[in-house]
């Protein structure tokens, strides 16, 4: 015999609008073992909570059912009420009649009837609930940051300054990310390198940051508070402990390849540092371009290296790092605009994408900061085409947010560095941000021409064969425009990194329609993910500019800190156990567990569970053919009883 109390919440009109709440409470009172049933406007309010606490005392309740919103919202609130009243917190059942009922129907009869069915099931299950004890585990105080662009750098510095040890993992040979490629930053036009490189240097100097460049995460085990992360250190073929960065090797190296850093506009050596301010400022060998690796002869770098740092035998190595929390800040790629053949990128040398133009402006870039086209001429007319691939149902529907602003910046820099006419082809200008609208107005005054119409096609000019022709519809005048230019700048969509799916799989993140990492809640938990202890910052979550990225990075650092600042943390008690008498040794549990909790005891011939790793997801219980795995709080008996209750309706 149980003594169950049922508390029905109106959630203002959120629930009461499509569920007859008082009728639901009256119905609850008729169910067996229910000794008290009440409805109230806001059950989560202090009077609501007090009402539950009073009824627990007065009616000597031993089970509590709250029919309200999703347990994601208020399960913790009501568990605390039970705990304060001397009841085990796992004797609470939440019936979600908001997200699962009132918000998905307009019909009050249907709503009420479904709410009754759910409640009937919950009463059946509630009787069978068992008190459970939460586990307390030690928390590893260190943090890992994946990706060392501006987001990763910022988050690492913030965390390291609080005294935490930070492992900063970067797949490239230098940190800095895309921001290090830029020349000026909007809207203030301050030099990107001048504000970024001091931070890069701080990362290198910081005693609490362990910098892991040329590294990738290859495996993630464990869970919040205790991640075991395997890092693959890619072979650099240069021993960075010995190298003193004299760079004699890079001068002598005969191997050549295109510079990723300069977006393919320049060449680099096979042994190289990507750019003069790279951190760490030590070279790596590109195996694909190296003469020795290709032909088996050369080793010039080895001969000139006084430190004997060159090591052609170096192999990839793996190491494991233990951390309590992870920040993923893996950034973005630009869409490959070659697929949009109407814009002629890759076909006409006069068509550039935005990152290439950033390099043209940069004094450390392939042209020394001069705007010179691939054919060596200075452009007389330049068209900047907005929204290439973004805001486009045929490619990516999202707005890349920063293109309007950097396109305005480009216009300014073109005006400053050339005598060319600059034309914008845009759908509309989005300049929402501090100082952004002012910057837009400033550019308008600089004699830049704005044509409201998306660029439709770039073709070879019929009259002047070495010029290009941009076609578009000017939507203000309604006229079709054909504009001869020398240079076309595309502002392509920002899209998730090509390996974002692998990262998502490693860290159990979900991705949105475009492939960006999903936040736990779009408004209230924008930096957390559904994977506890893993946070996201920067463009890997959605396109954003540098100020927003930095703000997010600081936020993610603070969120990670909330976990690692404690030395112990409480975990859910809802783990699984194995009944060895029923285990048929099929090892399905071992195969499906994403956390590596079940393991097979060869001597006993049965599976067992490492409870420290179990997250209680129940995957193993669902694939166990003999029902030998018992998921606490969701036992077969409990679930079947609930289903029977549901099906009575």
């Amino acid at each position, binding site marked *: 015999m149980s003594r169950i109390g049922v508390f029905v919440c109106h959630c203002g009109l959120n629930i009461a609008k499509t569920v007859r709440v008082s009728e639901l409470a009256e119905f609850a009172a008729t169910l067996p073992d229910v000794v008290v049933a009440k409805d109230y406007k806001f059950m989560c309010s202090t009077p609501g909570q007090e009402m539950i606490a009073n009824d627990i005392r007065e009616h000597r309740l031993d089970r509590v059912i709250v029919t309200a919103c999703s347990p994601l919202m208020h399960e913790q609130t009501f568990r605390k009420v039970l705990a304060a009243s001397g009841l085990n917190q796992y004797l609470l059942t939440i019936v979600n009649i908001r997200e699962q009922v009132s918000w998905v129907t307009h019909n009050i009869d249907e709503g009420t009837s479904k709410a009754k069915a759910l409640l009937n099931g919950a009463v059946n299950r509630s009787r069978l609930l068992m008190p459970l004890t939460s586990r307390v585990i030690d928390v590893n105080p260190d943090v890992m940051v994946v990706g060392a662009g501006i987001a990763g750098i910022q988050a690492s510095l913030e965390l390291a300054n609080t005294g935490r040890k930070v492992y900063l993992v970067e797949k490239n040979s230098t940190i800095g990310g895309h921001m290090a490629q830029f020349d000026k930053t909007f809207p203030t036009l301050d030099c990107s390198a001048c504000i970024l490189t001091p931070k890069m240097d701080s990362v290198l100097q910081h005693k609490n940051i362990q910098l892991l460049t040329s590294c990738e995460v290859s495996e993630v085990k464990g869970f919040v508070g205790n991640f075991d992360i395997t890092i693959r250190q890619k072979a650099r073929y240069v021993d960075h402990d010995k190298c003193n960065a004299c760079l004699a090797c890079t001068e002598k190296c005969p191997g050549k390849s295109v510079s990723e850093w300069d977006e393919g506009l320049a060449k680099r050596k096979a042994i190289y540092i990507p750019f003069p301010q790279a951190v760490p400022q030590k070279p790596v060998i590109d195996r694909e371009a190296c003469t020795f690796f290709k032909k088996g002869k050369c080793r010039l770098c080895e001969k000139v290296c006084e430190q004997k740092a060159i090591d052609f035998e170096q192999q990839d190595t793996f190491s494991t790092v233990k951390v309590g929390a992870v920040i993923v800040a893996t950034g973005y790629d630009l869409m490959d605009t070659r697929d949009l053949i109407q814009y002629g990128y890759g076909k006409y040398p006069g068509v550039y994408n935005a990152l290439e133009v950033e390099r043209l402006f940069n004094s450390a870039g392939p042209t020394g900061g001069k705007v010179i086209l691939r054919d060596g001429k200075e452009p007389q007319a330049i068209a900047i085409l907005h929204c290439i691939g973004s805001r486009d149902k045929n490619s990516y529907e999202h707005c890349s947010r920063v293109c309007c602003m950097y396109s305005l910046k480009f216009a300014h820099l073109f005006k400053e560095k050339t005598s060319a006419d600059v034309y914008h082809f845009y759908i509309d200008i989005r300049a929402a941000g501090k100082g952004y609208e002012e910057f837009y107005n400033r550019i308008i005054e600089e004699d830049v021409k704005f044509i409201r119409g998306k660029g439709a096609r770039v073709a070879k000019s019929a009259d002047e064969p070495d010029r290009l022709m941009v076609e578009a519809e000017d939507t203000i005048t309604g006229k079709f425009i054909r504009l001869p230019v020398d240079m076309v700048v595309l502002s392509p969509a920002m899209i998730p990194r090509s390996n974002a799916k692998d990262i998502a799989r490693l860290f159990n993140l979900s991705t949105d329609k475009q492939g960006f990492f999903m936040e736990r809640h779009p408004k209230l938990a924008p930096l957390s993910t559904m994977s506890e202890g893993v946070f996201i910052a920067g463009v890997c979550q959605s396109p954003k500019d540098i100020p927003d990225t930095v703000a997010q990075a600081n936020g993610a650092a603070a969120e990670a800190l909330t976990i690692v600042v404690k030395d112990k943390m409480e975990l859910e008690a809802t783990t699984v156990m194995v009944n060895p008498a*029923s285990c048929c040794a099929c090892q399905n549990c071992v195969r499906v567990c994403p956390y590596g909790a079940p393991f097979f005891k060869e001597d006993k011939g049965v599976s067992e569970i490492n409870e420290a790793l179990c997250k209680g997801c129940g995957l193993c219980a669902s694939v166990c*053919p*003999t029902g030998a795995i018992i998921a606490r709080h969701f036992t077969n*008996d409990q679930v*079947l009883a609930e289903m029977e209750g549901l099906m009575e309706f």
Partner: protein
Amino acid sequence: MAVSFQQIEEKLKTEARRLLESGQVSLVLAWGRGFDEKHPMPYVAKGASDVDGIVFNEFCTHNLARYLVRYPRGTKMAVAVKAADSRAVVQLIQEDKVKRHDLVILGIPVYGIKNPKTGEIIDGKTTCGLYNPVLYDILIAEEVHGQPVSSPYAVLAEYEAMDQDARFAFWKKELDRCIRCYACRKACPMCYCDPCFIDQNKPKWGEKSPETPGNLMYHLTRFHHLAGRCIDCGECSRACPVDIPLYLFHKKVAKECEEMFGQAAGMSIEDKPVLVNFRMEDSDKILE
């Protein structure tokens, strides 16, 4: 080339004697004489003196992989297998029920095996229809050249022509005849669960008396548990005393599994059990 059952029997005996005498294995799973010629039965030779009891003839239908999981882990065993039987061994290795290095697989390429009950030749209608074992250590006869032309799923044409309601009515009618003798479960090399879910009492997953709800619960769950694992030997249907065409359901599920994940059960020990293995390239069709 005609298959000589006599020659196969002789070769089986020779190999079994050699393996047992050398101590390489502690037992040999093969076939032995039943109550008459037409009804051979599974036979275990545990010493050289047992070897003479081994027989092989056209009625040796039993899938001996069934008996591998009976012995403690680590037992060195030899097992005689026909084509489909070898797939069962492969599947058991995939599922880590037996270790490859504990086994000596005596592969028998053969065709023309007959159903003792009906005398009909067993072909791709009720089994996978292969002639040659997919995995073996010792080949007992020469490989049969050429593989069957018709697909093992060809027999499904009539079944697939039925709509959803007709299919349910079909299975309800067929499974209603089940007398719950559990011969299908006993014959199946993949049914190694102990206890079987249907024998459990808490929770009681289904009624144990031979009536519609319990019958459906037992068979549908068994079909589900064998999804992606059934190697299509057809032993369940031959063991059934009331001739329920269980192979139809198994074939249908196997076909869907193969189409969805590009992997047939028990074809390679490099494969992983398909329904408990996640690959990035897996089809999402099941979610639609």
